[in-house]
């Protein structure tokens, strides 16, 4: 029953229609459905649908940006003044685009997808030094560190991340990478645990780490 009432919201998010998505979220809330239920059964379900499209290679940045914007607007409505859901989170992920790379679109997309899938994301921003990244990881004790890279000159920095985490006693934290330049490489080539082909591929990896098997979680 709840799932049926979520269909409008799910469809609006998948189509990237922010206004319509927020309107559906408002209606659901008016009907007494909690914000957390809307996130789990609506927003996360929409993410799962998008994830399936992505697997079918019918996906592109335009669709994911529009859907991401719709998700962001719905979350703003559900949790005004707070960027993260108030409910329980599946875990924390630290994200960064490393020093010398100021292209952060890919990172921001991963952030949206992880947030919409109930992960807490600590965003170290773009042009981020290794020192700042390690400090954030020490402070947040995340499941994983995600690095996005559009240009090849950051590769030597990416290769240092895992070794630095070990030096700081953070060897339990997994490192994954993605983005136009980095995804051409391999985990061995980048000295990371995983290379994500797409933002959803990154989500799957984090889900594995968190012990969840699907984009929608338990």
């Amino acid at each position: 029953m709840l799932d049926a009432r979520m269909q409008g919201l799910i469809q609006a998010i998948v189509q990237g229609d922010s206004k319509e998505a927020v309107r559906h979220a408002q209606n659901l809330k008016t009907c007494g459905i909690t914000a957390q239920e809307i996130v789990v059964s609506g927003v996360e379900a929409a993410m799962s649908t998008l994830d399936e499209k992505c697997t079918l290679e019918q996906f592109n940045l335009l669709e994911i940006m529009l859907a991401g914007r719709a998700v962001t607007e719905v979350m703003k409505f559900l949790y005004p003044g707070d960027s993260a859901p108030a409910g329980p989170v599946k875990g924390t992920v630290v994200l960064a685009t490393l020093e010398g790379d100021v292209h952060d679109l890919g990172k921001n997309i991963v952030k949206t997808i992880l947030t919409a899938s109930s992960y807490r994301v600590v965003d170290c921003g773009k042009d981020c030094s290794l020192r700042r990244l390690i400090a954030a990881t020490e402070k947040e004790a995340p499941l994983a560190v995600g690095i996005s890279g559009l240009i090849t000159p950051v590769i030597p920095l990416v290769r240092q991340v895992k070794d630095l985490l070990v030096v700081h006693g953070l060897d339990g934290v997994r490192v994954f990478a993605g983005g136009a330049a980095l995804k051409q490489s391999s985990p061995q080539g980048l000295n990371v645990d995983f290379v994500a082909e797409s933002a959803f591929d990154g989500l799957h990896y984090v889900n594995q780490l968190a012990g969840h098997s699907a984009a929608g979680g338990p």
Partner: protein
Amino acid sequence: MNSLERITATLAFRKSDRVPVIAQVFGHAAAVARIPLNEYLQNGDKLAQGQLAALERYGYDAVFGFLDANVETEAVGSTLYYTPSHYPVVEKHIFTAKTDPASFAVPDPLSAGRMPEVLRALRILKNEVGSRTLVVGCVLGPFSLVTQLLGMEQALYLVQDDPARLASFMDFATDTAICFGQAQIDSGAHLPLVFEPAASLSVVPPSFFEKYDFPRLRRIFDAFSCAGAVANWLHIAGPIIPIMPSFPCMGVHIAHFDYCVPPLEAIKQLPTTCLDGNIKSLTFLHSSSAEIEAEAAALLDVFSERGGYILSSGCEIPPESPAENIAALVRAAVRKAS
């Protein structure tokens, strides 16, 4: 055969002494000539000097009068941030989602930003090697320029929020490409390559390409043909298979394909169009010269019967790539022919 004759024959699917090699060497040329990258990127004399030094070192078949992907947006008025050792990035985009592009003039290639430096480099390259080597200019395709004028996010949001305004931005970008490309041909380029990475199907769906890009790219290529381009060359990185069949209708004579497009699929989609590609860029950083030579040899085998093929990388060869890895590309073509 010299390089120009080799490429001309290949374009016509005729026999040549060997497969032409066009390495996408841009910033790497500065390293070859020992010119700091930020000087190479702002001075036409140094751009030409670097390209000539790289041509001499590697012996491939084309030089590029190309600085970076931000030349046009800077010429319109965007502010760039220059660093000593990387390509510049846009610090402040000149357009917003509310801008009326009619209030902006198409930049004059003779005076706007670094456009004159590109033209100066092309004149030098034409004088020095243009009688025997392909001299390639470059313009950004219409949607790629819109993303540089507005920012990628804003440009993509416009597709849904204000399609009419997006169309007017793309018309402005098309006029800019035509004007800059014609000036490049006038300055000595044999052709301006149209670099349209934002039309990759990893960025926009095929329906977007058909509606927004196709008619404008056709207009650009028509204009270049009229201005004397020896051929029309389209470069879209990333996945492009569903849109490839439309390339000949736009007047494309050379179609680039990236590493994610299998060569046999490219042949199937464009049976009578000259193709160039597609060794993964990162291979030039991470692999040995022997591995690159082997990969190039495999590509040459695929195209040996068909012809109409230029050996190249999938996208720009990373500037920090070892020299022996670029040399391996040419060596593979020479060995295959011998």
